[in-house]
């Protein structure tokens, strides 16, 4: 924390911080409209595809009897993976008292909320009869990993929303009290309601700190569970490629890679679009880059375990699967994901230069795309080999390729996730103002004093 400043200095600084951090809320130009237009159009096209799928049934997808999990499930795993970043940055690093990550925690929570919300929706799109969705809760089988997954996803979503909301309360009060007239009235009405009559009492701060602490501790088991249980959906079967004991940590490690990449991209977009150079500093990108290398190394370690050990043994069924990945039909995709998703980021980012905002963002884009394909490779090739003595099976049961409807719905999920992030960024400051101000040595009294 910087040294305490005089009230006059403090007020001026706070005004500047508030001004900078509300720019995302105030700013509305042609580009904003265009961006919304783009997202909504693509999302609508996806919803239209979903309409067709509901009308005609899952036969419109490429999924058949053998490959009964296709692009939807791969996409689901991807989104669950991305959502895990909320747990890493706003809880794990916080509890470890790592300071630099504070600025980023709201971005991480935005990404987490958007991703986990979409993960839930994607599962519904994968259902042949979405109208029976409630049956999962009414008649679920407690011994089924699918029920565990549904439970943990909803729990994680709730905790993420609370983790996002709690530190937002003082900010909402601040905007309510000090917000300029540039902020549209309806937004300020929402702030007034959501601020819950925040007055900045010491008592209230204490409650927030207390509740945050509980959530941060709670999200550790829940966050680990969400992706571990997702991995169990696969690992609890006997299929080659899924039947492995390291799937839990393997998925969690991979999730951090995808999540860090997503957060860096969003950070960079905010930094350039909302002029937040002094907030998301080069320093933060540098630190994120180091974190990135670390999680990539952990993930690399798990990848080596996951492929080298069975590759050494080459058990009958396993060897079909592995050679399919290493040299067969999926080899291009497999090696591309390993290269762009792991080797490239590690080798580049150990170098300081590549941890600068622009290069690291470009690398993150590659890694994020690679992570998506990595999930595809985890789900589909295994299902294409049922390893049963089958006869007289239609050709299209044995191979899977997504149909245009599936692609439309998947595009919808991306657009919807971006839409959630955009709306959150347009509604609420992307950095916690009061925490940041406190960090700069501005006292709480000044933060919560009403506008003159």
């Amino acid at each position, binding site marked *: 924390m910087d040294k305490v400043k005089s009230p006059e200095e403090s007020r001026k600084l706070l005004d500047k911080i508030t001004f900078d951090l509300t720019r995302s809320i105030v700013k509305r130009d042609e580009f904003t409209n265009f961006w919304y237009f783009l997202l909504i159009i693509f999302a609508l096209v996806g919803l239209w595809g979903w309409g067709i799928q509901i009308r005609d049934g899952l036969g419109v997808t490429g999924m058949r009897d053998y490959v009964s999990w296709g692009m939807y499930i791969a996409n689901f795993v991807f989104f669950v993976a991305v959502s895990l970043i909320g747990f890493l940055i706003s809880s794990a690093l916080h509890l470890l008292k790592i300071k630099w990550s504070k600025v980023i925690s709201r971005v991480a929570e935005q990404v987490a909320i958007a991703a986990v919300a979409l993960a839930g929706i994607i599962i519904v799109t994968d259902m042949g009869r979405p109208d029976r969705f409630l049956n999962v809760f009414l008649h679920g089988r407690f011994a089924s990993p699918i029920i565990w997954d549904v439970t943990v996803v909803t729990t994680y979503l709730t905790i993420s929303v609370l983790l996002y909301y709690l530190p937002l309360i003082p900010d909402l009060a601040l905007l309510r009290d000090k917000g300029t007239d540039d902020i549209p009235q309806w937004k300020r009405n929402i702030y007034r309601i959501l601020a819950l009559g925040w007055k900045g009492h010491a008592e209230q701060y204490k409650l927030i700190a207390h509740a945050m602490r509980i959530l941060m501790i709670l999200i550790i088991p*829940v966050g680990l569970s969400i992706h571990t249980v997702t991995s169990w959906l696969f690992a609890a079967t006997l299929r080659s490629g899924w039947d492995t004991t390291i799937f839990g940590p393997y998925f969690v490690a991979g999730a951090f890679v995808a999540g860090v990449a997503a957060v860096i991209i969003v950070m960079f977009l905010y930094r350039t679009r909302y002029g937040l150079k002094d907030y998301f500093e080069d320093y933060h990108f540098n630190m994120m880059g180091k974190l990135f290398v670390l999680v990539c190394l952990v993930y690399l370690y798990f990848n080596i375990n996951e492929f080298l050990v069975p590759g050494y043994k080459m058990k009958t069924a396993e060897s079909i699967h592995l050679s399919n990945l290493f040299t067969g039909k999926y080899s291009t995709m497999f090696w591309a994901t390993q290269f762009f998703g792991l080797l490239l980021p590690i080798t580049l980012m150990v170098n300081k230069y590549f941890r600068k905002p622009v290069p690291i963002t470009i690398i993150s884009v590659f890694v994020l795309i690679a992570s998506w394909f990595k999930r595809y490779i985890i789900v589909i090739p295994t299902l294409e080999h049922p390893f049963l003595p089958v006869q007289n099976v239609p050709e299209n049961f044995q191979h899977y390729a997504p149909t245009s409807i599936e692609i439309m719905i998947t595009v919808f999920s991306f657009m919807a996730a971006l839409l959630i992030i955009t709306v959150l960024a347009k509604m609420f400051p992307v950095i916690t103002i009061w925490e940041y101000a406190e960090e700069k040595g501005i006292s709480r009294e000044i933060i919560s004093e009403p506008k003159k």
Partner: protein
Amino acid sequence: MKKQIILTLVIALMSVFQGLAQEWLVPDDQKTLTNPSEYNLSNVKKGKDLYMKNCKSCHGDPGKHNGLPLVPAPPDVVSEKMQNNTDGELHYKITKGRGGMPQFEITISDDDRWRLINFIRNFDPSREQLLVDAPPKKAKLLASVNEVEKKVEIFAEVEDANGSFVTLTDAAVKISAKKAFGNLPIGEVLTNADGRAEYKIPETLIGDENGMVNIVVQLDEAYITDNVVLDAAKVGQLKPQPKLIKKEILWSTNENIQTWLLLSYLGAVGAAWAAIAYVVFQIFKIWRLGKE
């Protein structure tokens, strides 16, 4: 490329063998053997019984071309392929067998094998047909189950030349139990002089969970009747219920869920949501403080 060459070779070889398969070579000394058993009604009848027991399952009913779809196919006895054999060839083929055709050297005596040939010759167009199947007659079949004594009581009538029904004597009545994949034959009785028959259901017959059996009663193909189906007769033993999925196992249904699993699940979910509820309560407290 290499693969394709090998594949072509394999296919070529296979068709050569396929070609060989058409030709069933019989040693010359065997070919010319003559049938020592006389071609008369008694031998043909015995041959028919043997055929019904040993051959019909694959070769089907004579003249109906309803043999099993094997490759190569078991030919119908009326077919030219069958009849073009000399007696000696038939004898050799039945004795030695080949591929899908079993050998009967051990299971059927030599005399009986020659009788089978007599039966096959019954369908040789160049010979007088000794055994002629009469056209099927109309018949009526009544049956009921006596659950107490565990028997099926049967009464059969047949249409005589004048079109009126008279009791059917000495007719074979087949009794079977309807199962999921077809009828399981359980026995056969002959009707007596009154056209009646009684069939004692074996103690070992297994029914469904409640011991119920669906019994099918039918006459053979010489008669036209509807089969009598006696639904849900309580004459069988209770079907054993495997305990396999009835006990508590990790992946079981909710009724048989393992206690520790249920408790862990509910405990974890309960703890998480209790904590969430507590946090929401803190938010409520913040709101209350704000009102003061």
